[in-house]
């Protein structure tokens, strides 16, 4: 019996990990290119869940049309954030001078509060349950039972994570983004439009976070503060995987998903959300560069 339970926990943990990865990759890319943490990342996720749910329910369009709309909306919110709030960080017109970390923390923290309360006031504090992509409630794969929506969502997540990784690795834009992340000045001297690269990264991470929110919306019941926990999880993951490293984020996401899934059953269910946080503090103390990060040196 314990064998079947373990397989079930592992599969569920890995699926949870896939959605963490969608969040963490975007956060990690943002950190890579601007060296800041986006404290509004959970709100991109929340916006994605709402966009999908409301487009599908209010306009009555089928779920598979509402889904791309939610992706695009998330990308738009991300791009807008970069354009209005992040550009001062490198375009040289912030009044904060050298305190760019502090500026970024305050501004994204403010944006997070703003988005939560804006949704709370305009749409309401009630939870919305998003429509499922397909109506098959139970599919048996070997010993595990899984809902059709969850299986499809996990498949889509794998597809999107793979596409993102390939995009970053081989495409023209992906290479430009990596160049800017390595050395902003050097990249701009080589003729790369660094502002465009930053905008692209924010749009991409808005897209990814919104994807996670939209795909999970039948499970999480979107409410204005739904983004808080996924965001904190993805901070943990990004530090564990090494800030700025996409493969690191993916592996750390899957690991956290599995650890939580087992910890909730064999450890303590009430404290399941603290496992990652404790791990984070331990990591920051003993291995701040993360699992796969390179130890940077600023000159």
């Amino acid at each position, binding site marked *: 019996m314990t064998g079947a339970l373990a397989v079930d926990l592992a599969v569920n943990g890995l699926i949870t990990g896939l959605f963490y990865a969608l969040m963490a990759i975007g956060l990690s890319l943002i950190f890579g290119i601007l060296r800041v943490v986006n404290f509004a990342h959970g709100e991109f996720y929340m916006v994605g869940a709402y966009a999908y749910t409301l487009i599908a329910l209010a306009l009555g369009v089928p779920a598979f049309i509402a889904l791309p709309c939610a992706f695009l909306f998330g990308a738009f919110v991300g791009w807008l954030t970069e354009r209005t709030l992040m550009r001062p960080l490198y375009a040289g017109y912030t009044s904060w001078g050298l305190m760019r970390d502090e500026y970024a923390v305050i501004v994204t923290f403010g944006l997070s*509060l703003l988005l939560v309360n804006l949704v709370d*006031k305009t749409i309401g504090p009630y939870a919305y349950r998003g429509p499922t992509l397909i109506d098959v409630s139970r599919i048996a794969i070997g010993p595990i039972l899984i809902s059709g929506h969850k299986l499809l969502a996990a498949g889509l997540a794998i597809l999107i994570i793979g596409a993102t990784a390939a995009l970053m690795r081989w495409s023209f834009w992906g290479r430009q983004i990596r160049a800017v992340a390595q050395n902003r000045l050097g990249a701009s001297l080589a003729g790369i439009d660094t502002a465009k690269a930053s905008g692209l990264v924010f749009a991409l991470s808005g897209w990814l976070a919104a994807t996670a929110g939209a795909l999970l919306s039948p499970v999480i019941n979107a409410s204005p503060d739904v983004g808080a926990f996924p965001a904190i999880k993805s*901070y943990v993951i990004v530090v564990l995987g090494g800030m700025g490293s996409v493969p690191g984020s993916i592996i750390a996401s899957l690991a956290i998903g599995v650890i939580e899934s087992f910890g909730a059953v064999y450890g303590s269910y009430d404290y399941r959300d603290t496992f990652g946080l404790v791990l984070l503090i331990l990591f920051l103390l003993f291995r701040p560069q993360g699992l796969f990060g390179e130890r940077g040196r600023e000159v």
Partner: protein
Amino acid sequence: MGGDRRTALEFRAALVALAIAALVPAFVENAYWLGVLVVSMYFAILAGAWNLLAGYTGQFSLAPAAFAMMGAYATGLLGNNTGLPPLVTIPFAILATGAIGLALGRVVLRLSGPYLALTTLSFAEIMRLVASNSINVTRGDLGLPVTGLFQNRIGWYYLFLGTLALLLVLLYFLLRSRAGLFLQAIRDDEVAAARSGVDVVFWKTVAFALSSAACGLSGALYAHFAELVTPDLGTVGQTGLVVSMTVIGGMGTLVGPVVGAFLVYLVSEWLRDVGGYQLIVFSLLVIAFARFFRSGLWGIVTGLRRQPA
């Protein structure tokens, strides 16, 4: 010295603000608004304490509300379990939160910027989750009932005002001393400060401990004022309010957080009546101030004064 003159001016402005606050009960008898002002002063202490850490030392902690919550639980739990009077349990809360702050300060010494913000945020969330899940000790989200202290609001009003004034005077003398210079040197350039012989490790830890102890004191007083402690005291939203107050009032100034706390909390109570748009307005203001007016309202005021010259 320019810095000293600037601090002295800010100190006088803060004293004027507190003097005005001291006269308010002569005109306002409404218990509700007196309560609102008491809560404003609770936040003013938190904002001032956070300002010592973030504004003067450059250590961007996101845990001030968590320390207030821990102070509140410390006094509440000790008082309920031993029957000791608040006169004993409140100093205990100060020491306890100071010690936790000291430990956290040691832990996060090597971190800066986003890493520091993330670690303190995680710490705050862990503490809140522990408080809310340890139901047999803290009664969880139901809240822990705590004994009161005064029968009427006036007593609370002056207790909070006196505490705020005392902390402000202490902060002023701290900033005037060599320690204040050390802290600001760490904020401006940690490496250069260390090279010039500032014991960075020691002073950063001290700043953490002092700031946490002040937050703990404020939380402990609040616990006896509200007669109830809940994990909600330590949410990220509460920290958001503290950050908003400091940034809007003016970070790294003595008077900014105090005036910011009164303004933000009073306006937020007023907006609550209008329809609950307070947090939308404040988050917009925070973004606008961070983006365009780094020195906050106080910076705008002093800027206007300097303009004609």
